[in-house]
């Protein structure tokens, strides 16, 4: 695969953000490389992620999609061997610079993980956790915020009578929606989801997918997934990664129905990965 072809697109590249009709770019990644020790996980990658859309990263395991996701909110800072070069701008603000306040950054970029990871606290405390750190709210305001986040994450009706019960008592799907509520309770711009349904049963998966699709009205969502059906069901944009390179990206329909690259075609047809 020639290097030049590694980025086939960025269809909205260069489009004016002020344009009313076209979606505006939220995250702009350019010439991005990432390493773990001496292993290069991502090669010279450029990609635009559009505001208020769901972008799915697909590709076989080890292709660098999670690595990229974890650089968007600098989660990889806690991995001592992880390094990167290039540019990653959110709302035209460079995120990768050393002076970035990652605590403040992560407040604005929420993250949802592979396995539901509620804290061993009550449901209420889980959602109130981040607002307590970042904001000074009165008790009433906090209650309102918690209710809003739980409603927004479509889990309010199931937990409203047991807000003080431990979060571990919820089902897997409910836990994952609780984690989404926890992430949005602090009002992020952007939601990163690292295979949010891989540990869930099909029914819970559908509920989360519906939720993701709904949430994009207020958030820009980036979702890593192994599951191509999931990408096709609930994403607007799809980016296909292979061996640390971006092979193809574009509107989900285009990538799945008329891929430009043979490898994309093979992958979405299930010939490998």
């Amino acid at each position, binding site marked *: 695969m020639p290097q030049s072809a590694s980025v086939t697109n960025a269809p909205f590249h260069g489009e004016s953000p002020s344009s009313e009709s076209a979606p505006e770019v939220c995250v702009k990644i350019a010439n991005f490389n990432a390493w773990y020790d001496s292993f290069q996980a991502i090669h010279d990658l450029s990609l635009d992620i559009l505001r208020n859309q769901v972008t799915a990263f697909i590709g076989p395991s080890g292709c660098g999609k999670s690595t990229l996701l974890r650089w968007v*909110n600098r*989660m990889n800072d*806690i991995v*001592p061997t992880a390094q990167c070069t290039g540019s990653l701008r959110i709302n035209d603000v460079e995120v990768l610079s050393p002076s970035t306040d*990652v*605590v*403040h*950054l*992560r*407040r604005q970029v*929420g*993250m949802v*993980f*592979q*396995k539901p*990871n*509620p*804290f*061993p*606290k009550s449901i209420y405390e889980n959602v109130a*956790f*981040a607002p307590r*750190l*970042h904001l000074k709210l009165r008790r009433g305001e906090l209650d309102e915020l918690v209710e809003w986040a739980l409603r927004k994450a479509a889990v309010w009706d199931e937990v409203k009578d047991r807000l003080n019960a431990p979060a571990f008592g919820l089902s897997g799907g409910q836990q994952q929606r609780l*984690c989404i509520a*926890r*992430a949005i309770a*602090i009002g992020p711009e952007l939601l990163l989801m690292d295979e949010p349904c891989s540990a869930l049963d099909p029914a819970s998966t559908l509920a989360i997918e519906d939720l993701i699709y709904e949430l994009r009205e207020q958030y820009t969502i980036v979702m890593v997934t192994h599951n191509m059906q999931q990408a096709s069901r609930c994403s607007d944009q799809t980016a296909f990664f292979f061996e640390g390179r971006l092979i193809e990206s574009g509107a989900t329909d285009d990538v799945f129905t008329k891929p430009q690259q043979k490898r994309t075609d093979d992958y979405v047809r299930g010939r490998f990965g």
Partner: protein
Amino acid sequence: MIAVLAMCAFATIAITLGIVVMLVTESWHFFNSQYVSVRDFLTGTQWTALQSKSIEDAKFGIWPLLSGTFRVTSIAMLIALPSGLITAIYLSEFASPKVRATLKPALEVIAGIPTVVLGYFAVLVISPSLQWLTNGGFDAFNATSAGIAVGILCLPMVCSLSEDALHAVPRSLREGAFGLGCTPLETATRVVVPAALSGIVSAFLLAFSRAIGETMVVALAAGTQATYTMDPRAQSQTMTGFIVEMIKSENEYGTVQYYSLYGVAVTLFVITFGMTLVGQLVRRRYRETYA
């Protein structure tokens, strides 16, 4: 073959039974004596088993020994619990592999130092330093220097048990906290430590029990006077210290004074066994949480 192995396993129960039988039968000689009443033993504030000339004057009230044990143990815990926990947090949350590679062996070496060596260290270094710092405010043998040495002894234990508990907290919880914009401190204190709390509590209980049962340090550094006081500068014979002192003395096997050591041993065993039991039960519960 399995029968042989099972017998090995049941030998451990036999040991527990042996301890109980030994303590009950031997302390019976003490509690059954006409010079001893269980009530005075449990409430008395004077202990003169070794000092009194005749059995008629001997006072057997456990409280001076308990207070001595309590003083030494509290000082030890004041040192070992915070520093052990903080070191454990440092090791599990912050330390780079390089620092770990120095710190862990150092702690293991401390854990492997025989207790008699720490007792000697208390007499040689800690006690003179305390006297120098306070212009002689401390007795040569005192609860504080013994307590500090016992604290040093418990530190690696608190640290490694707490670190185990912190390690058992899944990585995903830490990532969740970092993902919400927690600083490392907030991640550690608001998520990881609360999640590992039962393990940490159990570590504390086990260390506490270890400190109560520690013998050689107090035998060397805490003095031989059983004092009923809260003054950490005074001599303070502990329960274990008394047992050693009685063994060392020329008291004839079979006298009431001699058997009084079994009365003390029963008290010691009940306290430490109770704490260890609670500690182990708590530990099991937290292990199940993240199994």
